[in-house]
Protein backbone atom coordinates (compact mmCIF):
# COMPACT_ATOMS: atom_id res chain seq x y z
CA UNK A 1 0.00 0.00 0.00
CA UNK A 2 1.30 3.48 -0.79
CA UNK A 3 2.12 5.99 1.90
CA UNK A 4 -0.80 8.16 0.82
CA UNK A 5 -3.23 5.28 1.12
CA UNK A 6 -1.91 4.33 4.55
CA UNK A 7 -2.23 7.91 5.67
CA UNK A 8 -5.79 8.01 4.35
CA UNK A 9 -6.51 4.79 6.24
CA UNK A 10 -5.15 6.31 9.48
CA UNK A 11 -7.33 9.38 8.97
CA UNK A 12 -10.34 7.12 8.42
CA UNK A 13 -9.64 5.33 11.73
CA UNK A 14 -9.17 8.69 13.46
CA UNK A 15 -12.53 9.89 12.15
CA UNK A 16 -14.15 6.71 13.48
CA UNK A 17 -12.68 7.35 16.92
CA UNK A 18 -13.76 10.99 17.11
CA UNK A 19 -16.11 11.46 20.05
CA UNK A 20 -19.48 13.19 19.82
CA UNK A 21 -18.06 16.33 21.50
CA UNK A 22 -15.47 16.60 18.73
CA UNK A 23 -12.40 15.47 20.64
CA UNK A 24 -10.51 12.18 20.77
CA UNK A 25 -9.85 9.75 23.61
CA UNK A 26 -6.31 8.72 24.57
CA UNK A 27 -7.13 5.05 24.06
CA UNK A 28 -9.58 3.47 21.60
CA UNK A 29 -13.00 2.70 23.06
CA UNK A 30 -12.63 5.29 25.83
CA UNK A 31 -15.24 8.06 26.11
CA UNK A 32 -13.07 10.68 27.80
CA UNK A 33 -11.63 13.46 25.63
CA UNK A 34 -7.89 13.86 26.13
CA UNK A 35 -6.23 16.98 24.76
CA UNK A 36 -2.97 15.56 23.42
CA UNK A 37 -4.57 13.04 21.01
CA UNK A 38 -7.25 15.60 20.13
CA UNK A 39 -4.66 18.14 19.02
CA UNK A 40 -2.51 15.70 17.04
CA UNK A 41 -5.63 14.30 15.37
CA UNK A 42 -6.82 17.77 14.49
CA UNK A 43 -3.41 18.61 12.98
CA UNK A 44 -3.33 15.30 11.12
CA UNK A 45 -6.78 15.71 9.60
CA UNK A 46 -6.40 19.39 8.74
CA UNK A 47 -9.13 21.72 7.46
CA UNK A 48 -9.54 19.61 4.32
CA UNK A 49 -11.43 17.06 6.47
CA UNK A 50 -13.93 19.82 7.08
CA UNK A 51 -16.52 18.10 9.26
CA UNK A 52 -14.15 16.34 11.66
CA UNK A 53 -11.78 19.31 11.83
CA UNK A 54 -14.45 21.87 12.62
CA UNK A 55 -15.95 19.75 15.37
CA UNK A 56 -12.48 19.33 16.85
CA UNK A 57 -11.85 23.07 16.65
CA UNK A 58 -15.13 23.78 18.44
CA UNK A 59 -14.24 21.22 21.12
CA UNK A 60 -10.84 22.81 21.65
CA UNK A 61 -12.25 26.32 21.94
CA UNK A 62 -15.01 25.17 24.27
CA UNK A 63 -12.69 23.49 26.74
CA UNK A 64 -10.31 26.40 27.22
CA UNK A 65 -10.06 27.34 30.90
CA UNK A 66 -11.15 30.81 32.11
CA UNK A 67 -7.47 31.67 32.83
CA UNK A 68 -6.54 31.07 29.18
CA UNK A 69 -4.94 27.65 29.64
CA UNK A 70 -6.16 24.25 28.49
CA UNK A 71 -6.70 21.12 30.62
CA UNK A 72 -5.04 17.77 29.94
CA UNK A 73 -8.46 16.13 29.52
CA UNK A 74 -12.06 17.30 29.63
CA UNK A 75 -13.14 17.23 33.27
CA UNK A 76 -9.68 18.12 34.55
CA UNK A 77 -9.01 20.93 37.03
CA UNK A 78 -9.06 24.39 35.50
CA UNK A 79 -5.61 25.57 36.62
CA UNK A 80 -4.00 24.63 33.29
CA UNK A 81 -1.65 22.02 31.89
CA UNK A 82 1.18 21.33 29.45
CA UNK A 83 -1.37 20.80 26.68
CA UNK A 84 -1.85 24.58 26.46
CA UNK A 85 1.22 24.84 24.22
CA UNK A 86 -0.14 22.12 21.92
CA UNK A 87 -3.53 23.85 21.73
CA UNK A 88 -1.82 27.07 20.67
CA UNK A 89 0.02 25.22 17.91
CA UNK A 90 -3.27 23.74 16.70
CA UNK A 91 -4.98 27.13 16.71
CA UNK A 92 -2.17 29.00 14.96
CA UNK A 93 -3.29 31.09 11.99
CA UNK A 94 -6.93 30.51 12.90
CA UNK A 95 -8.49 33.97 12.76
CA UNK A 96 -11.63 32.76 14.49
CA UNK A 97 -9.54 31.77 17.51
CA UNK A 98 -7.55 34.99 17.95
CA UNK A 99 -9.10 35.85 21.31
CA UNK A 100 -8.49 32.34 22.67
CA UNK A 101 -4.94 32.42 21.39
CA UNK A 102 -4.16 35.71 23.05
CA UNK A 103 -5.41 34.47 26.42
CA UNK A 104 -3.55 31.20 25.89
CA UNK A 105 -0.24 32.88 25.10
CA UNK A 106 -0.61 35.15 28.12
CA UNK A 107 -1.03 32.08 30.33
CA UNK A 108 1.87 30.28 28.67
CA UNK A 109 4.20 33.22 29.23
CA UNK A 110 3.24 33.30 32.91
CA UNK A 111 3.68 29.54 33.38
CA UNK A 112 7.18 28.51 34.46
CA UNK A 113 9.04 25.72 36.21
CA UNK A 114 9.56 26.17 39.92
CA UNK A 115 13.26 26.90 39.36
CA UNK A 116 12.22 30.31 38.04
CA UNK A 117 11.75 31.40 41.65
CA UNK A 118 14.92 32.56 43.48
CA UNK A 119 13.97 30.49 46.54
CA UNK A 120 13.92 27.21 44.67
CA UNK A 121 17.01 28.15 42.66
CA UNK A 122 18.80 28.64 45.97
CA UNK A 123 17.52 25.26 47.24
CA UNK A 124 18.71 23.46 44.11
CA UNK A 125 22.12 25.12 44.36
CA UNK A 126 22.66 24.44 48.05
CA UNK A 127 20.81 21.36 49.31
CA UNK A 128 19.39 19.47 46.37
CA UNK A 129 22.45 18.81 44.25
CA UNK A 130 22.12 15.17 43.25
CA UNK A 131 20.56 15.98 39.88
CA UNK A 132 22.92 17.85 37.59
CA UNK A 133 21.26 20.88 36.07
CA UNK A 134 21.62 24.62 36.03
CA UNK A 135 18.61 26.01 37.89
CA UNK A 136 19.15 29.45 36.30
CA UNK A 137 17.89 27.92 33.07
CA UNK A 138 14.22 27.17 33.28
CA UNK A 139 11.39 26.30 30.98
CA UNK A 140 7.89 24.90 31.41
CA UNK A 141 6.42 22.25 33.72
CA UNK A 142 3.87 19.51 32.98
CA UNK A 143 1.57 21.16 35.48
CA UNK A 144 1.76 24.21 37.76
CA UNK A 145 4.02 24.12 40.83
CA UNK A 146 6.52 21.61 39.49
CA UNK A 147 9.90 21.73 37.74
CA UNK A 148 10.64 22.38 34.09
CA UNK A 149 10.89 19.28 31.91
CA UNK A 150 12.05 18.65 28.39
CA UNK A 151 8.80 17.80 26.61
CA UNK A 152 6.56 20.60 27.93
CA UNK A 153 9.40 23.09 27.41
CA UNK A 154 9.87 21.92 23.82
CA UNK A 155 6.15 22.21 23.09
CA UNK A 156 6.06 25.69 24.65
CA UNK A 157 9.01 26.82 22.49
CA UNK A 158 7.26 25.47 19.40
CA UNK A 159 4.08 27.30 20.41
CA UNK A 160 5.92 30.59 20.98
CA UNK A 161 7.29 30.39 17.46
CA UNK A 162 3.65 30.76 16.40
CA UNK A 163 3.23 33.95 18.44
CA UNK A 164 2.06 36.70 16.10
CA UNK A 165 4.83 39.35 15.77
CA UNK A 166 2.51 42.07 17.02
CA UNK A 167 2.05 40.19 20.31
CA UNK A 168 5.66 39.20 20.82
CA UNK A 169 7.48 41.31 23.37
CA UNK A 170 10.46 41.20 25.67
CA UNK A 171 8.90 38.57 27.91
CA UNK A 172 8.39 36.16 25.01
CA UNK A 173 11.98 36.67 23.86
CA UNK A 174 13.25 36.12 27.42
CA UNK A 175 11.18 32.93 27.87
CA UNK A 176 12.32 31.58 24.50
CA UNK A 177 15.94 32.24 25.41
CA UNK A 178 15.66 30.66 28.88
CA UNK A 179 13.73 27.68 27.54
CA UNK A 180 16.31 27.06 24.83
CA UNK A 181 19.13 27.35 27.36
CA UNK A 182 17.33 24.88 29.61
CA UNK A 183 17.03 22.30 26.82
CA UNK A 184 20.69 22.66 25.96
CA UNK A 185 21.61 22.31 29.64
CA UNK A 186 19.53 19.16 30.18
CA UNK A 187 21.03 17.18 27.28
CA UNK A 188 22.31 13.72 28.22
CA UNK A 189 26.07 13.07 28.12
CA UNK A 190 26.71 11.82 24.58
CA UNK A 191 23.63 13.54 23.17
CA UNK A 192 19.88 13.11 23.23
CA UNK A 193 17.31 13.90 25.88
CA UNK A 194 15.17 11.99 28.31
CA UNK A 195 12.44 13.51 30.49
CA UNK A 196 14.96 16.03 31.78
CA UNK A 197 17.61 14.43 33.96
CA UNK A 198 20.91 13.91 32.20
CA UNK A 199 22.91 12.92 35.29
CA UNK A 200 21.68 11.76 38.71
CA UNK A 201 24.07 10.87 41.55
CA UNK A 202 26.95 11.08 39.10
CA UNK A 203 25.47 8.48 36.74
CA UNK A 204 24.57 9.42 33.19
CA UNK A 205 20.97 8.55 32.35
CA UNK A 206 20.00 7.24 28.94
CA UNK A 207 18.24 9.42 26.38
CA UNK A 208 14.87 8.52 24.82
CA UNK A 209 14.05 8.66 21.13
CA UNK A 210 10.76 10.55 21.49
CA UNK A 211 12.00 13.11 24.02
CA UNK A 212 15.08 13.71 21.87
CA UNK A 213 12.97 14.16 18.77
CA UNK A 214 10.59 16.65 20.40
CA UNK A 215 13.53 18.66 21.79
CA UNK A 216 15.20 18.69 18.36
CA UNK A 217 11.99 20.00 16.80
CA UNK A 218 12.02 22.86 19.29
CA UNK A 219 15.69 23.51 18.49
CA UNK A 220 15.14 23.43 14.75
CA UNK A 221 16.91 26.74 14.27
CA UNK A 222 19.89 25.77 16.44
CA UNK A 223 21.44 23.08 14.22
CA UNK A 224 24.92 24.51 14.81
CA UNK A 225 24.84 24.01 18.58
CA UNK A 226 27.24 21.19 19.53
CA UNK A 227 24.55 19.61 21.76
CA UNK A 228 22.10 19.62 18.85
CA UNK A 229 24.65 18.11 16.46
CA UNK A 230 25.50 15.40 18.98
CA UNK A 231 21.82 14.68 19.61
CA UNK A 232 21.04 14.46 15.91
CA UNK A 233 23.87 11.96 15.54
CA UNK A 234 22.55 9.97 18.51
CA UNK A 235 19.03 9.94 17.07
CA UNK A 236 20.27 8.98 13.62
CA UNK A 237 22.27 6.11 15.10
CA UNK A 238 19.45 4.76 17.23
CA UNK A 239 16.44 4.70 14.95
CA UNK A 240 17.77 1.60 13.23
CA UNK A 241 17.32 -0.65 16.26
CA UNK A 242 13.88 -2.17 16.90
CA UNK A 243 11.57 0.51 18.08
CA UNK A 244 7.94 1.55 18.30
CA UNK A 245 5.78 3.69 16.00
CA UNK A 246 5.43 6.66 18.38
CA UNK A 247 9.17 7.15 18.77
CA UNK A 248 9.90 6.55 15.09
CA UNK A 249 7.23 8.98 13.93
CA UNK A 250 8.58 11.76 16.16
CA UNK A 251 12.12 10.89 15.03
CA UNK A 252 11.14 11.23 11.38
CA UNK A 253 9.67 14.68 12.03
CA UNK A 254 12.75 15.82 13.98
CA UNK A 255 15.29 14.55 11.47
CA UNK A 256 13.36 16.14 8.61
CA UNK A 257 13.23 19.42 10.54
CA UNK A 258 17.05 19.36 10.56
CA UNK A 259 17.15 18.65 6.82
CA UNK A 260 17.94 14.93 7.09
CA UNK A 261 16.50 12.59 4.49
CA UNK A 262 13.77 10.49 6.12
CA UNK A 263 12.34 8.83 3.05
CA UNK A 264 13.48 5.32 4.02
CA UNK A 265 12.45 5.73 7.64
CA UNK A 266 8.98 6.93 6.73
CA UNK A 267 8.40 4.25 4.11
CA UNK A 268 9.51 1.45 6.46
CA UNK A 269 7.25 2.92 9.12
CA UNK A 270 4.34 2.90 6.68
CA UNK A 271 4.94 -0.70 5.68
CA UNK A 272 4.67 -1.99 9.26
CA UNK A 273 1.47 -0.14 10.05
CA UNK A 274 -1.89 -1.65 10.88
CA UNK A 275 -3.86 1.41 12.00
CA UNK A 276 -6.72 -0.54 13.58
CA UNK A 277 -4.29 -2.39 15.85
CA UNK A 278 -2.96 0.82 17.39
CA UNK A 279 -5.07 1.61 20.46
CA UNK A 280 -3.19 4.77 21.36
CA UNK A 281 -4.84 7.60 19.44
CA UNK A 282 -1.96 10.04 19.82
CA UNK A 283 0.41 7.48 18.27
CA UNK A 284 -1.93 7.04 15.33
CA UNK A 285 -2.19 10.78 14.75
CA UNK A 286 1.57 11.38 15.04
CA UNK A 287 2.08 8.62 12.48
CA UNK A 288 -0.26 10.46 10.11
CA UNK A 289 1.81 13.60 10.69
CA UNK A 290 5.05 11.74 9.95
CA UNK A 291 3.60 10.38 6.70
CA UNK A 292 2.99 13.95 5.54
CA UNK A 293 6.23 15.36 6.85
CA UNK A 294 6.54 18.67 4.98
CA UNK A 295 3.04 19.85 5.79
CA UNK A 296 3.38 18.68 9.40
CA UNK A 297 6.63 20.58 9.92
CA UNK A 298 4.97 23.75 8.71
CA UNK A 299 2.21 23.22 11.27
CA UNK A 300 4.50 22.31 14.15
CA UNK A 301 7.41 24.67 13.67
CA UNK A 302 5.71 27.70 12.10
CA UNK A 303 8.12 27.67 9.19
CA UNK A 304 6.79 29.28 6.04
Amino acid at each position, binding site marked *: MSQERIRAEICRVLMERQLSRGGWPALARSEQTALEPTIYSMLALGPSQKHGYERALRCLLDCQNPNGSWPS*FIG*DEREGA*WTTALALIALADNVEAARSQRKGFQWLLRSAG*KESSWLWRWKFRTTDRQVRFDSNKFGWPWQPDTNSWV*VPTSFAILALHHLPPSWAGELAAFRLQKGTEMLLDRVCPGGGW*NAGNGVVYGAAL*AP*HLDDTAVALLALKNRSDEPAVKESLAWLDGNIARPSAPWSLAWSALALAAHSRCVHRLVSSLAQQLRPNDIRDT*ATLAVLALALDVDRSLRLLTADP
Partner: protein
Amino acid sequence: MTISRRDLLIAGTALAAGVSVSAPFLRPPYRIDRRRVRSRVALLRVEDYSRPIDELLFLGLRQFPLRVQGKTVLLKPNLVDYLPGNAINTHPRLVVAAAEAFRRLGARNVVVGEGAGHQRDTQLVLSESGYEHDLRQYGISFVDLNRDELVRVELGASYTDFEHLWLPRTVLRSDFIVSMPKVKAHHWSGVTLSLKNMFGVVPGNKYGWPKNILHWRGILESILDICATVPIHFVIADAVIAMEGNGPLNGSPRALWTVVLADDPVAADATCARLMGFEPERIPHIHEAARFLGNSSPGLIDQAGEGLRRPEVPFQVVPEFQHIRAT
Protein backbone atom coordinates in the same frame (compact mmCIF):
# COMPACT_ATOMS: atom_id res chain seq x y z
CA MET B 1 -10.55 32.46 94.91
CA THR B 2 -13.69 33.20 92.98
CA ILE B 3 -14.11 32.52 89.32
CA SER B 4 -16.25 34.99 87.51
CA ARG B 5 -18.39 34.28 84.46
CA ARG B 6 -15.95 36.44 82.50
CA ASP B 7 -12.98 34.26 83.57
CA LEU B 8 -14.91 31.15 82.57
CA LEU B 9 -15.72 32.65 79.19
CA ILE B 10 -12.07 33.56 78.54
CA ALA B 11 -10.85 30.14 79.67
CA GLY B 12 -13.47 28.39 77.53
CA THR B 13 -12.56 30.45 74.47
CA ALA B 14 -8.85 29.79 74.99
CA LEU B 15 -9.51 26.05 75.35
CA ALA B 16 -11.61 25.94 72.18
CA ALA B 17 -8.95 27.85 70.24
CA GLY B 18 -6.25 25.52 71.51
CA VAL B 19 -8.20 22.43 70.52
CA SER B 20 -9.00 23.78 67.06
CA VAL B 21 -5.34 24.63 66.41
CA SER B 22 -3.88 21.38 67.73
CA ALA B 23 -6.56 18.93 66.55
CA PRO B 24 -5.20 18.56 63.01
CA PHE B 25 -1.81 17.60 64.49
CA LEU B 26 -3.26 15.16 66.99
CA ARG B 27 -5.60 13.43 64.56
CA PRO B 28 -3.90 10.70 62.52
CA PRO B 29 -3.60 11.57 58.82
CA TYR B 30 -5.23 8.29 57.75
CA ARG B 31 -8.89 7.36 57.76
CA ILE B 32 -8.57 3.60 57.35
CA ASP B 33 -6.83 0.79 59.17
CA ARG B 34 -6.02 -2.22 57.00
CA ARG B 35 -3.77 -4.01 59.46
CA ARG B 36 -4.49 -7.71 59.79
CA VAL B 37 -4.32 -9.58 63.05
CA ARG B 38 -1.51 -11.57 61.48
CA SER B 39 0.05 -11.28 58.03
CA ARG B 40 1.43 -14.03 55.88
CA VAL B 41 4.56 -14.01 53.74
CA ALA B 42 6.07 -16.81 51.65
CA LEU B 43 9.56 -16.81 50.18
CA LEU B 44 10.00 -18.92 47.04
CA ARG B 45 13.42 -19.95 45.83
CA VAL B 46 13.59 -19.22 42.09
CA GLU B 47 16.80 -20.05 40.25
CA ASP B 48 15.85 -18.33 37.01
CA TYR B 49 12.88 -16.92 35.14
CA SER B 50 12.26 -19.91 32.90
CA ARG B 51 9.18 -22.06 32.52
CA PRO B 52 9.14 -23.92 35.94
CA ILE B 53 8.32 -20.61 37.62
CA ASP B 54 4.65 -21.11 36.57
CA GLU B 55 4.05 -24.17 38.75
CA LEU B 56 6.18 -22.86 41.59
CA LEU B 57 4.22 -19.62 41.73
CA PHE B 58 0.88 -21.41 41.50
CA LEU B 59 1.82 -23.67 44.41
CA GLY B 60 3.08 -20.63 46.32
CA LEU B 61 -0.22 -18.80 45.84
CA ARG B 62 -2.10 -21.89 47.03
CA GLN B 63 -0.52 -21.32 50.44
CA PHE B 64 -2.78 -18.27 50.81
CA PRO B 65 -6.56 -18.38 51.15
CA LEU B 66 -7.07 -16.23 48.04
CA ARG B 67 -10.63 -15.58 46.95
CA VAL B 68 -10.36 -14.45 43.36
CA GLN B 69 -13.06 -16.58 41.72
CA GLY B 70 -15.03 -14.48 39.26
CA LYS B 71 -12.99 -11.38 40.03
CA THR B 72 -11.04 -8.93 37.89
CA VAL B 73 -7.39 -9.08 38.88
CA LEU B 74 -5.02 -6.23 38.09
CA LEU B 75 -1.33 -7.10 38.03
CA LYS B 76 0.73 -3.96 38.55
CA PRO B 77 4.38 -4.66 37.67
CA ASN B 78 7.21 -2.17 37.92
CA LEU B 79 7.86 -1.23 34.30
CA VAL B 80 9.86 1.97 34.28
CA ASP B 81 12.13 2.06 31.28
CA TYR B 82 14.42 -0.29 29.41
CA LEU B 83 18.20 -0.31 29.63
CA PRO B 84 19.90 -3.47 28.36
CA GLY B 85 21.54 -5.39 31.20
CA ASN B 86 19.93 -3.38 34.02
CA ALA B 87 17.46 -5.19 36.30
CA ILE B 88 14.97 -2.35 36.19
CA ASN B 89 11.63 -4.01 35.52
CA THR B 90 9.64 -6.84 37.04
CA HIS B 91 10.53 -9.75 34.79
CA PRO B 92 7.81 -10.43 32.20
CA ARG B 93 7.99 -14.19 32.80
CA LEU B 94 7.00 -13.63 36.43
CA VAL B 95 4.07 -11.45 35.35
CA VAL B 96 2.87 -14.06 32.86
CA ALA B 97 3.23 -16.80 35.49
CA ALA B 98 1.15 -14.71 37.90
CA ALA B 99 -1.54 -14.14 35.26
CA GLU B 100 -1.69 -17.86 34.51
CA ALA B 101 -1.85 -18.71 38.22
CA PHE B 102 -4.72 -16.29 38.90
CA ARG B 103 -6.59 -17.68 35.89
CA ARG B 104 -6.17 -21.18 37.32
CA LEU B 105 -7.46 -19.90 40.66
CA GLY B 106 -10.67 -18.83 38.92
CA ALA B 107 -10.18 -15.11 38.18
CA ARG B 108 -12.68 -13.90 35.60
CA ASN B 109 -10.25 -11.49 34.00
CA VAL B 110 -6.54 -10.78 34.54
CA VAL B 111 -5.15 -7.49 33.25
CA VAL B 112 -1.65 -6.07 33.43
CA GLY B 113 -1.53 -2.31 33.97
CA GLU B 114 1.29 0.18 34.40
CA GLY B 115 1.98 3.87 33.88
CA ALA B 116 5.71 4.03 33.22
CA GLY B 117 7.28 6.90 35.10
CA HIS B 118 10.08 7.88 32.76
CA GLN B 119 9.16 6.72 29.26
CA ARG B 120 6.31 8.29 27.33
CA ASP B 121 6.54 5.57 24.68
CA THR B 122 4.78 2.74 26.47
CA GLN B 123 4.84 0.53 23.38
CA LEU B 124 8.62 0.87 23.22
CA VAL B 125 9.11 -0.18 26.86
CA LEU B 126 6.74 -3.10 26.36
CA SER B 127 8.50 -4.36 23.26
CA GLU B 128 12.08 -3.83 24.44
CA SER B 129 11.49 -5.34 27.86
CA GLY B 130 9.94 -8.50 26.40
CA TYR B 131 6.44 -7.81 27.75
CA GLU B 132 4.78 -7.36 24.39
CA HIS B 133 5.84 -10.78 23.15
CA ASP B 134 4.99 -12.63 26.36
CA LEU B 135 1.64 -10.94 26.99
CA ARG B 136 0.55 -11.54 23.40
CA GLN B 137 1.60 -15.19 23.54
CA TYR B 138 -0.59 -15.78 26.60
CA GLY B 139 -3.47 -13.54 25.51
CA ILE B 140 -3.09 -11.16 28.45
CA SER B 141 -4.26 -7.60 27.94
CA PHE B 142 -2.25 -4.57 28.98
CA VAL B 143 -3.64 -1.17 29.96
CA ASP B 144 -1.48 1.93 29.73
CA LEU B 145 -2.35 3.60 33.05
CA ASN B 146 -0.74 6.83 31.86
CA ARG B 147 -3.52 7.19 29.31
CA ASP B 148 -6.50 5.35 30.75
CA GLU B 149 -9.77 7.16 31.52
CA LEU B 150 -9.48 9.13 34.73
CA VAL B 151 -11.76 9.36 37.74
CA ARG B 152 -11.46 11.89 40.55
CA VAL B 153 -10.87 10.13 43.86
CA GLU B 154 -10.84 11.44 47.43
CA LEU B 155 -7.77 10.22 49.26
CA GLY B 156 -7.78 7.73 52.12
CA ALA B 157 -5.11 9.72 53.98
CA SER B 158 -3.81 13.26 54.12
CA TYR B 159 -0.04 13.05 54.41
CA THR B 160 0.22 15.34 51.37
CA ASP B 161 -1.92 18.40 50.78
CA PHE B 162 -3.57 16.80 47.76
CA GLU B 163 -7.31 17.05 48.20
CA HIS B 164 -7.84 14.32 45.63
CA LEU B 165 -6.10 12.50 42.79
CA TRP B 166 -7.21 11.53 39.32
CA LEU B 167 -6.71 7.79 38.99
CA PRO B 168 -7.22 5.31 36.13
CA ARG B 169 -10.62 3.70 35.83
CA THR B 170 -9.01 0.29 35.28
CA VAL B 171 -7.39 0.46 38.71
CA LEU B 172 -10.55 1.60 40.45
CA ARG B 173 -12.68 -1.06 38.79
CA SER B 174 -10.37 -3.94 39.67
CA ASP B 175 -11.55 -6.27 42.41
CA PHE B 176 -8.12 -7.54 43.35
CA ILE B 177 -4.90 -5.53 42.93
CA VAL B 178 -1.55 -7.29 42.96
CA SER B 179 1.52 -5.10 43.36
CA MET B 180 4.45 -6.77 41.59
CA PRO B 181 7.54 -4.68 42.34
CA LYS B 182 11.08 -5.25 41.26
CA VAL B 183 13.08 -5.25 44.47
CA LYS B 184 15.43 -2.27 44.20
CA ALA B 185 17.30 0.30 46.19
CA HIS B 186 16.06 3.78 45.29
CA HIS B 187 17.97 7.05 45.44
CA TRP B 188 15.00 9.14 46.64
CA SER B 189 13.11 6.72 48.91
CA GLY B 190 15.71 4.19 50.05
CA VAL B 191 13.83 1.27 48.52
CA THR B 192 11.19 0.76 45.87
CA LEU B 193 8.99 -2.20 46.78
CA SER B 194 5.26 -2.92 46.71
CA LEU B 195 4.19 0.40 48.27
CA LYS B 196 6.40 2.68 46.15
CA ASN B 197 5.44 0.61 43.09
CA MET B 198 1.97 2.18 43.30
CA PHE B 199 3.36 5.47 41.97
CA GLY B 200 2.73 3.76 38.65
CA VAL B 201 -1.05 4.10 38.99
CA VAL B 202 -0.74 7.89 38.93
CA PRO B 203 -1.38 8.91 35.31
CA GLY B 204 1.34 10.70 33.34
CA ASN B 205 -1.22 12.26 31.02
CA LYS B 206 -2.39 14.36 33.96
CA TYR B 207 0.70 14.53 36.20
CA GLY B 208 3.54 14.31 33.66
CA TRP B 209 6.65 12.20 33.05
CA PRO B 210 8.11 11.84 35.62
CA LYS B 211 5.28 12.37 38.08
CA ASN B 212 7.12 15.33 39.51
CA ILE B 213 4.19 16.62 41.55
CA LEU B 214 4.57 13.57 43.84
CA HIS B 215 8.16 14.58 44.55
CA TRP B 216 7.16 18.14 45.35
CA ARG B 217 4.38 16.99 47.68
CA GLY B 218 6.78 14.54 49.35
CA ILE B 219 7.69 11.05 48.19
CA LEU B 220 7.03 9.41 51.54
CA GLU B 221 3.76 11.31 51.95
CA SER B 222 2.63 10.51 48.40
CA ILE B 223 3.34 6.80 48.82
CA LEU B 224 1.19 6.73 51.94
CA ASP B 225 -1.68 8.70 50.42
CA ILE B 226 -1.74 6.59 47.25
CA CYS B 227 -1.62 3.30 49.13
CA ALA B 228 -4.32 4.47 51.54
CA THR B 229 -6.50 5.18 48.52
CA VAL B 230 -5.73 2.20 46.27
CA PRO B 231 -5.69 -1.02 48.29
CA ILE B 232 -3.00 -3.58 47.54
CA HIS B 233 -4.62 -6.98 48.02
CA PHE B 234 -1.56 -9.09 47.36
CA VAL B 235 2.15 -8.76 46.61
CA ILE B 236 4.39 -10.78 44.31
CA ALA B 237 7.84 -9.19 44.52
CA ASP B 238 10.59 -10.00 42.04
CA ALA B 239 13.82 -10.41 44.02
CA VAL B 240 15.27 -13.05 41.73
CA ILE B 241 17.63 -10.45 40.29
CA ALA B 242 17.24 -7.33 42.42
CA MET B 243 19.02 -3.96 42.20
CA GLU B 244 21.37 -2.21 44.62
CA GLY B 245 23.03 1.19 44.57
CA ASN B 246 21.72 4.06 42.47
CA GLY B 247 18.26 2.63 41.70
CA PRO B 248 15.66 2.72 40.28
CA LEU B 249 17.46 2.91 36.91
CA ASN B 250 21.21 2.98 37.31
CA GLY B 251 21.96 0.57 40.11
CA SER B 252 23.72 -2.77 39.80
CA PRO B 253 21.98 -6.15 39.52
CA ARG B 254 22.19 -8.28 42.64
CA ALA B 255 20.78 -11.80 42.78
CA LEU B 256 18.61 -12.90 45.69
CA TRP B 257 16.98 -15.82 43.80
CA THR B 258 13.74 -15.15 45.62
CA VAL B 259 10.11 -14.31 44.87
CA VAL B 260 8.27 -12.85 47.85
CA LEU B 261 4.52 -13.46 48.19
CA ALA B 262 2.44 -11.67 50.80
CA ASP B 263 -1.14 -10.85 51.70
CA ASP B 264 0.02 -7.57 53.27
CA PRO B 265 2.10 -4.93 51.43
CA VAL B 266 3.82 -3.66 54.58
CA ALA B 267 4.79 -7.18 55.62
CA ALA B 268 6.03 -7.77 52.06
CA ASP B 269 8.14 -4.60 52.05
CA ALA B 270 9.52 -5.19 55.54
CA THR B 271 10.51 -8.72 54.50
CA CYS B 272 12.09 -7.53 51.25
CA ALA B 273 13.98 -4.84 53.17
CA ARG B 274 15.35 -7.50 55.54
CA LEU B 275 16.36 -9.62 52.54
CA MET B 276 18.28 -6.60 51.28
CA GLY B 277 20.04 -6.23 54.63
CA PHE B 278 18.08 -3.13 55.69
CA GLU B 279 16.22 -2.29 58.88
CA PRO B 280 12.61 -1.69 57.71
CA GLU B 281 11.80 0.52 60.69
CA ARG B 282 14.50 2.94 59.48
CA ILE B 283 12.74 3.33 56.13
CA PRO B 284 10.28 6.15 56.79
CA HIS B 285 7.41 5.08 54.51
CA ILE B 286 7.47 1.46 55.73
CA HIS B 287 7.67 2.61 59.35
CA GLU B 288 4.69 4.94 58.90
CA ALA B 289 2.69 2.45 56.79
CA ALA B 290 2.92 -0.02 59.67
CA ARG B 291 0.60 2.30 61.63
CA PHE B 292 -2.35 1.60 59.33
CA LEU B 293 -1.58 -0.29 56.11
CA GLY B 294 -0.08 -3.52 57.44
CA ASN B 295 2.37 -5.19 59.75
CA SER B 296 6.12 -4.79 59.68
CA SER B 297 6.99 -6.48 62.94
CA PRO B 298 8.33 -10.07 62.50
CA GLY B 299 6.17 -11.06 65.48
CA LEU B 300 3.03 -10.33 63.45
CA ILE B 301 4.17 -12.06 60.25
CA ASP B 302 3.75 -15.79 59.64
CA GLN B 303 6.42 -16.87 57.25
CA ALA B 304 6.22 -19.85 54.91
CA GLY B 305 8.56 -21.29 52.29
CA GLU B 306 12.28 -20.57 52.46
CA GLY B 307 13.82 -19.07 55.58
CA LEU B 308 14.59 -15.36 55.65
CA ARG B 309 18.34 -14.93 55.51
CA ARG B 310 19.84 -11.48 55.72
CA PRO B 311 22.81 -10.99 53.41
CA GLU B 312 26.27 -10.77 54.95
CA VAL B 313 26.78 -7.50 53.12
CA PRO B 314 23.69 -5.29 52.92
CA PHE B 315 22.67 -3.85 49.56
CA GLN B 316 24.54 -0.72 48.51
CA VAL B 317 22.57 2.54 48.71
CA VAL B 318 23.29 6.18 47.94
CA PRO B 319 24.95 8.12 50.83
CA GLU B 320 21.68 9.66 52.08
CA PHE B 321 20.33 6.19 52.95
CA GLN B 322 23.38 4.57 54.54
CA HIS B 323 21.52 4.58 57.87
CA ILE B 324 18.91 2.07 56.67
CA ARG B 325 21.56 -0.66 56.30
CA ALA B 326 21.58 -3.13 59.18
CA THR B 327 24.78 -2.91 61.19
